[in-house]
């Protein structure tokens, strides 16, 4: 067979697992990954899964990725199974199917602890988009002191301290946690919708300018 695509033939490149060429993953590997993810209760990344599966000899990354793909197709998000394998929080996680919410809510608290006040949600959005971010920066954007909202977020493990600003005063900087990514269905922090999406429309902007007295209204 002639390789028609000389660029695509480089097998030493970064391993984007190509399902066509990768051999069918060993059944025992798929089974083991399934067990690990079932027991974990938190997102497991490729490296952790590979490390756990490498009890005899180092396991190929591509083999683990291929086995994960098998599992993803076995437990698709929003499929007809009671639970699904989701790519969230920098790894893979089993969670219940959202379609089962009503039945689940009759027996369990459906994430009630993650109900947030508008103030806390606004603060969370600012931390998520601007991290690492300091308290004064958050207060500047919101126009009010946001300490109590930030405390709620720290308590619920949605936000954490990520360091200190390398400047006089060394303000504490905050960022989001893996729990945040899981709670808001994000594979990683880069999967947040771009902030530009929340820009106000041109007409609203003009209206605002007019009402603020920045432009003189015609007539």
């Amino acid at each position, binding site marked *: 067979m002639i390789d028609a695509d000389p660029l695509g033939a480089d097998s030493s490149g970064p391993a984007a697992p190509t399902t066509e060429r990768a051999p069918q993953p060993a059944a025992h590997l798929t089974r083991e990954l399934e067990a690990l993810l079932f027991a974990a209760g938190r997102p497991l990344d490729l490296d952790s899964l590979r490390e756990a599966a490498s009890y005899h000899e180092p396991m190929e990354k591509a083999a683990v990725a291929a086995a994960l793909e098998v599992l993803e197709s076995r437990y698709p998000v929003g499929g007809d199974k009671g639970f699904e394998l989701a790519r969230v929080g920098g790894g893979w996680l089993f969670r219940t199917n959202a379609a089962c919410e009503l039945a689940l809510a009759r027996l369990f608290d459906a994430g009630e602890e993650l109900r947030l006040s508008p103030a806390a949600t606004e603060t969370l959005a600012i931390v998520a988009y601007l991290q690492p971010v300091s308290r004064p920066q958050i207060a500047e954007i*919101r126009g009010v002191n946001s300490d109590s909202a930030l405390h709620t977020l720290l308590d619920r493990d949605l936000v954490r301290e990520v360091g200190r600003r390398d400047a006089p005063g060394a303000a504490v900087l905050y960022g989001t946690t893996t729990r945040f990514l899981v709670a808001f269905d994000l594979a990683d922090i880069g999967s947040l919708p771009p902030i530009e999406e929340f820009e106000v429309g041109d007409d609203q902007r003009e209206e605002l300018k007019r009402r603020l007295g920045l432009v003189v209204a015609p007539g």
Partner: protein
Amino acid sequence: MRVLDLDLDVYQGPFDLLFTLILREEVDIFEVPIVEVILAYVEELAATDAVDWEALTEFLVLISSLLELKSRVLLPGEEVGIEDADAELSKDVLLERLLTYRRYKMAAASLAEVRERQRGRLVREPARAPRRALAPDEEIRGSQAPASLTRALGRLLESHRLPDTSHVAVLRIGLNRQIAAIRRLLRERGSFSFEEEFGTEEPMVQAVSLLALLGLVSRGDVKVAQSSHFGDITVKHVDIQRVALRGTA
């Protein structure tokens, strides 16, 4: 002036209130009825028994920010001068701040929406505590905050596994053993340096050895000499003859 029905509790700050007034209630900033807002709040305050100081402070901040914003835009705009240039600038700054705030408010609304969809997506608790119970490296790297160390240790303590103590040896030490050891050393050598023999032992072994030595000294079995305070102790056999003499006395 029309009457606004404002529930002040629901506003998240001066920008939020201003945005609502301007865009939803379609009020020009010149018309924002600050006196009405204050009167409404005071009435509400009079109706409640206990004063919520935090809410009161927030209201003061809110209303004074609003006053500041309003006074800025009320500055006359037709005269040309440096002060007006400043006023125009601060209006631009105000617009930018309003727009920035609006952006994050919308982002928050989108997060809340996602969260609502997530309500049916439950995750099991982990079956077992993970073997590696320490905080992930990236959580403590670069942080000088004691809080993160506390959390890391907390996570370690939460682990249900008992810590592996196989490397900790049981200390076997007793007075009689050390007395026997000192006697053996003296039998073999006649005299020895305490520092050389016991200096590298565990503190407990050193302490018990010293007690053993003092016991032997008080019984008159050994002689000790120390040239300076806290210096090395030289241990010697007592002359056998003297022991014998004392024995017959």
